[in-house]
């Protein structure tokens, strides 16, 4: 029987050196769903994606993708699994020395023996899906930020993966590109039967397209639920995040000694 959950994360902890980033995370992504991982900058969202991609190994706990535990795979096993994953990096991470066409064709040429004719057709189909068939001949430097990300998305789905991970797909986009990207994620997930894992801090855009949301704060999951659950949530952190309030459980000020002490006002008075 096929497991319904494509990604399973159980009690995972991870730290860079002595600094803990994740402290016991539990998370699952069902097949065919768009799952968002939200949280403020630097809360460990990207680290979570790198764990799922097997680029770093969890200090504690189990990360399972398609039933395979990433901690137990050797490099060959990891690479075999990664062929079924696509990843969209924050700024696209396109190879700047080759054209849009060659970027999308990269994996097909590396991992398959397809003749160049077949590769051409596949690449044009993928580019058509993201609306950039006409840009196939351009170099990455000639693309706008939103276009670069769509090309990267075409590249990520070139080998028809079962899981696509998005690292901040909405960061720095104009409202039109924002809507286009959001719709693409939803549409590609549904038409290709993918599972999408979106790391973002853009609440409004993601609430429109996702099936399930996890909120991460200070290395733990503080809230989870469907888009409606989250909108209706009474949790102070979620409320602050969804409504973009400057102060709340997440303070405006970075931890510091008392303001009075720092300005030495108290000392002079004494």
């Amino acid at each position, binding site marked *: 029987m096929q497991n319904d959950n494509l990604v399973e994360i159980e009690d995972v902890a991870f730290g860079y050196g002595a600094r803990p980033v994740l402290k016991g995370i539990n998370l699952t992504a069902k097949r065919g769903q768009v799952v968002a991982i939200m949280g403020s900058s630097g809360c460990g969202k990207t680290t979570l994606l790198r764990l799922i*991609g097997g*680029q770093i190994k969890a200090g504690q706990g189990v990360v399972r993708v398609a039933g395979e535990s990433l901690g137990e795979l050797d490099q060959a096993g990891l*690479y*075999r699994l*990664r*062929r079924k*994953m*696509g*990843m969209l*990096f*924050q*700024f696209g*991470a*396109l*190879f*700047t020395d080759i054209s849009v066409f060659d970027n999308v064709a*990269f*994996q097909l040429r*590396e*991992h398959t023996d397809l003749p160049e004719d077949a590769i051409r057709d596949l690449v044009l189909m993928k580019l058509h899906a993201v609306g950039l068939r006409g840009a196939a001949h351009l170099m990455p430097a000639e693309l706008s930020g939103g276009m670069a990300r769509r090309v*990267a998305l075409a*590249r990520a789905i070139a080998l028809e993966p079962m899981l696509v991970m998005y690292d901040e797909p909405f960061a720095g986009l104009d409202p039109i590109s924002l809507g286009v990207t959001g719709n693409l994620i939803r549409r590609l997930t549904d038409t290709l039967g993918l599972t999408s894992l979106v790391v973002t801090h853009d609440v409004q855009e993601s609430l429109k397209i996702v099936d399930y949301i996890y909120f991460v704060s200070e290395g733990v999951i503080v809230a989870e639920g469907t888009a409606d659950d989250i909108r209706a949530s009474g949790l102070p952190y979620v409320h602050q995040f969804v409504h973009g309030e400057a102060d709340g459980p997440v303070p405006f000020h970075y931890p510091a000694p008392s303001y009075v002490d720092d300005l030495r006002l108290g000392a002079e008075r004494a």
Partner: protein
Amino acid sequence: MSTTFGWERSVLRRSIENLGQRTIQGVWRIGFAARFFLATLLHSGTAFRRFGLTIREIYFSGVLSLIIILVSGLFVGMVLGLQGYETLQTYGSEEALGVLVALSLVRELGPVVAALLFASRAGSAITAEIGLMKATEQLSAMEMMAVDPIARVVAPRFWAGVISMPLLAALFSAMGIFGGYLVGVQLIGVDEGSFWSQMQSAVDFEQDILNGVIKSVVFGIAITAIALFEGYDAPPTAEGVSGATTRTVVTSSLVVLALDFVLTAFMFRGLN
């Protein structure tokens, strides 16, 4: 009094701690570099199986370095012609100019100067390229696409450098000899026949030319390995990449000069 002493002690302790940390970091970096070099050799299959990748890199580091190598070679040879003639004519042996120019180029100046130019022209470019690929997550993207960046990006550049270096050094020497001929024979009027014939009889294939080629291969390995490692190890920031590029040029130039001394000591020890 005791507070002053305490302050001095803490400064001393901090500097010893710093020294220790730097030493550990240095040793760690050497270890990492060695593992990186080994991984490059082990993953070199792709560079030869898909030789097109290596050819492309030979174009970037070898062919595009041609202009600076050829022009420098010509001028170095011309200067050698002038200086050599000045010295040789005081002993009345200006016909030996060909020998002097050829031996200095083939044994020393060809491999060494070409290597120094290669380090600053191609080595710096390799470091900056790899460093920026890392900073813009292109290497991570490649890993996530199940393509090993060491095999796909690093190894072809390494072998391209190793192949290009002796060819560039040979061209440098050839241009230099031509420069020496232009100045010595065409300009000053040294006898053409003795210029070439003395050169032919004095330059030994094994002792001079082959040793020069060995030198340039070793320099090629050293420069390319340093450039690739510095790029791969560069912190992913603008400052990090610029620092790594500078380190590539400085380190590889010093390594070339040091290696040249060691190699020369071994090669020409028993000549005279």
